[in-house]
């Protein structure tokens, strides 16, 4: 498993992470919860000291289909946490920003990338981006961006 790889929880992984069942060991559950769709495998290895054999556990979770590195696998996931589906939302909002703003999307994309993946954090970032677009790029596009981005996060 490459150190630069960024993993996120699949819908199945989400379900198990939030359940209190015994589908996986507590060590595996701790590793599953630590996966957030932002932190690389290398960083997790250093950060998550409370999980023994981080890489080995991640490989097993990957094999079980609880975590993945392909964003397409979480398209139907619920929107409740910073990793997983939150990452997909960010990808979709970034796509809208690039479509509406073209070459001027760089700063907006960075703001979205830097934000947490929760709906609350994304909503605040979307409103902030709308203001930035209105002030420095285009008034009309700002309203279009706001409407479409809020639709994505279901607000």
């Amino acid at each position, binding site marked *: 498993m490459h150190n630069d790889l960024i993993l996120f929880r699949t819908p199945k992984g989400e379900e198990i992470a939030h359940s209190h069942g015994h589908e996986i060991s507590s060590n595996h559950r701790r590793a599953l919860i630590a996966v957030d769709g932002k932190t690389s495998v290398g960083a997790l290895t250093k950060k998550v000291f409370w999980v023994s054999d981080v890489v080995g556990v991640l490989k097993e979770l990957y094999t079980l289909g609880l975590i993945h590195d392909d964003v397409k696998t979480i398209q139907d996931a619920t929107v409740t946490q910073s990793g997983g589906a939150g990452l997909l939302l960010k990808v979709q909002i970034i796509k809208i920003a690039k479509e509406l703003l073209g070459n*001027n999307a760089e700063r907006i994309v960075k703001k979205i990338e830097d934000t947490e993946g929760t709906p609350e954090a994304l909503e605040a970032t979307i409103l902030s981006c709308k203001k930035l677009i*209105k002030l420095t790029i285009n008034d009309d596009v700002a309203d279009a961006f706001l409407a479409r981005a809020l639709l994505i996060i279901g607000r």
Partner: protein
Amino acid sequence: MDFDVTMIINALAILTMFYCLYLVLSLKSAIPGGMVGKRWNFLSVLVVLFTMGYLATPFFDQIPPEVLQPVISLIFLFGAIYVVVTVRLIFNIIRELTE
């Protein structure tokens, strides 16, 4: 002595205006449009005008008084417009950020 002081002040004013010109032109690419972008274009035009006016200050003693007076009045007028546009721009930015 008076001449030297005036010349130094003029030189400083021209240098400052060139710095201002550099700032408005270099920041232009970061502000392609929107509320700030529109005002920025107008401010850039005013800065270009001021730069030209400031460059002419060393030659003011060669300009006839009947021409010089309106020129100075115009510089004051454009200076006042510049200040109004800048203050309104700041006001609008604050309003937008706080709404």
